[in-house]
């Protein structure tokens, strides 16, 4: 009896595995010689724009190396996967891939020889891309400079390095097919949804992931992580005190800056740099779609919230003295020094640090100086649920990418000690945000200091 049950179990498992294996098995698509066909320059140009929207160059380019030749480390909780060489080199790149093989990679996450690709390659988004867009991308990539650069093997531990696991992942989380148009929305909104959900893969960073690393479908755009940076929620959970308008999202995507919200930093910087190559109409479409995610707030509500936020910061501002205007004032030391904490006379308070280190650019309540930083009360990191993003900015500052113009915020990593940064960030939160105080800034700071971001250099 026991034997019979065991035998049945073994047979069932065997059949199920056999069926799964048959389902997961993909045939090799024969190599083509480097496509002799001359690509239509119009199609190549369209592919270039789509590659910019898709940010292909970010993960497929190593810092300081040739574009699209691979090597960028994509850090995941399951290990590090290196972007592959997608130049048309026949040996190390995708020069021997037919358009059919390329399309299968984007739609199904399978390489030319039939191997399952890890979902660090966001085919859960690319699967929605149209055949004609994929054809244009193919034309664009096949006309790049071929670079002979061998792919680096992923650093993924056993048993996750068994490629069949990716097939199981797809069974659960890969939802193929085109995105059905929403007839109740404008053509621009639908275009924006298509670009954001397919090639743009915005959700790859802005949607939280489950334990298996898949985006949570019931928490779309509820905010995620990228390279140690906060990718803020784009839906109703957005920490922005005043909701984004389509015009503001457009300005942010186009210039990397929206004065009511802030500056693109961290992994969003190369995204903005790439989007400069995308057609303006597509940027506006994405902006229309993204702005709609947080629900509607009318202009009057927005204006009222903006005013309330600024008034709050200004009302708090009167409690500490304004920054020095330039000349040294010798302290008379009559009574308690302004801004000093009472418990520890040698430790400067967050307010004093703010006034000395930050206020020359960031003081509120008056005209901002030339560099025009945003009002901190409106800042997303200052209003975010955890302090990681603000800590990262205080430590490293914000710098335009090499050779680009843009505002600079200096980093204070070496200038301030950990207790000083903790006091400062705590002060900024309480002065500028109406959100509750962050409970454990010191622990968050230790974590942020350990988590250095990898260098990003995209074409």
């Amino acid at each position, binding site marked *: 009896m026991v034997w019979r049950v065991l035998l049945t179990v073994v047979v069932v498992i065997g059949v199920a595995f056999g069926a799964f294996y048959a389902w997961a098995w993909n045939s090799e698509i024969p190599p083509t010689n480097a496509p002799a066909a001359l690509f239509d320059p119009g199609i190549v140009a369209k592919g270039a724009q789509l590659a910019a929207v898709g940010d292909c160059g970010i993960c497929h380019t190593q810092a300081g190396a040739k574009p699209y030749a691979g090597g960028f480390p994509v850090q995941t909780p399951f290990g590090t996967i290196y972007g592959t060489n997608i130049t048309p080199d026949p040996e190390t790149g995708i020069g021997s891939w037919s358009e059919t093989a390329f399309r299968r990679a984007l739609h199904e996450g399978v390489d030319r020889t039939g191997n399952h690709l890890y979902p660090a390659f966001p085919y859960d988004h690319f699967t929605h891309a149209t055949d004609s867009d994929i054809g244009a991308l193919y034309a664009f990539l096949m006309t790049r400079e071929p670079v002979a650069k061998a792919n680096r093997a992923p650093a993924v531990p056993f048993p996750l390095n068994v490629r069949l696991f990716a097939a199981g992942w797809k069974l659960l989380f890969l939802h193929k097919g085109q995105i059905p148009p929403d007839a109740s929305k404008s053509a621009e909104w639908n275009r924006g949804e298509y670009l954001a959900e397919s090639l743009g893969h915005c959700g790859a960073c802005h949607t939280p992931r489950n334990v298996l690393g898949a985006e949570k479908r019931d928490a779309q755009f509820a905010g995620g992580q990228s390279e140690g940076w906060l990718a803020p929620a784009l839906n109703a959970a957005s920490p922005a005190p005043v909701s984004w308008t389509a015009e503001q999202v457009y300005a942010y995507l186009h210039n990397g800056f929206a004065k009511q919200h802030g500056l693109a930093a961290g992994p969003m910087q190369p995204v903005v740099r790439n989007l400069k190559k995308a057609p303006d109409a597509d940027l506006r479409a994405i902006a229309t779609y993204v702005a709609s995610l947080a629900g509607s707030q009318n202009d009057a509500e927005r204006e009222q919230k903006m005013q309330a936020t600024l008034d709050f910061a200004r009302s708090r501002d009167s409690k500490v003295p304004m920054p020095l205007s330039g000349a040294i004032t*010798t*302290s008379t030391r009559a009574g308690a020094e302004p801004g000093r904490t009472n418990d520890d006379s040698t430790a400067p308070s967050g307010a004093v640090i703010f006034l000395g280190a930050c206020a020359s650019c960031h003081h509120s309540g008056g005209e901002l100086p030339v560099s025009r930083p945003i009002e901190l009360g409106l800042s997303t990191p200052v209003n975010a649920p955890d302090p990681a993003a603000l800590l990262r900015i205080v430590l490293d500052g914000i710098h335009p990418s090499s050779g680009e113009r843009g505002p600079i915020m200096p980093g204070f990593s070496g200038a301030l000690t950990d207790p000083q940064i903790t006091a400062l960030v705590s002060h900024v939160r309480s002065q500028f945000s109406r959100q509750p105080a962050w409970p454990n800034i010191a622990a968050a700071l230790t974590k942020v200091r350990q988590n250095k971001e990898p260098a990003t250099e995209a074409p």
Partner: protein
Amino acid sequence: MTVLNVNGQQHRIDVDPRTPLLYVLRNELKLNAAKFGCGLGQCGACTVLVDHEPVFSCILPISVLEGRYIRTVEGLGSEGRPGPVQSAFIEEQAAQCGYCIPGMMMRAQGLLEHNASPSDAQIRDAMAPNLCRCGTQMRILRAVRRAAKAMMADAGTMQETAK
């Protein structure tokens, strides 16, 4: 009263604790190497070292500096006995108007204390926050490379002497 350790000397300073270090260095201590450029931490002319890290002294209040080790160009050497970074900048004639040079030297010193033989990319990366409007960047880069070699040679000689 704030006690500051500048170039190994303790100074008791009686000014508002919000005062930027740069003003104290120049106006109180008469250490005029560090320069006022933008006052906003954007140009690097005011760069000094705090605990071996280059910082913008124009946006650093003295209240955060008690018990920390501050160094300026005056601490790198003297006119008669210039330090290796100063010598390298002189030998490469890296200064044109010279206004950015003290900040450049302090940032170079900070780099070389962390990394004795930086690559060209590392030098460029480290020096990026400091601006020079005359255009002597190529000479500054040469000076940093020369200083690195000189400091390596000095370290070698010291090891020899120790033997």
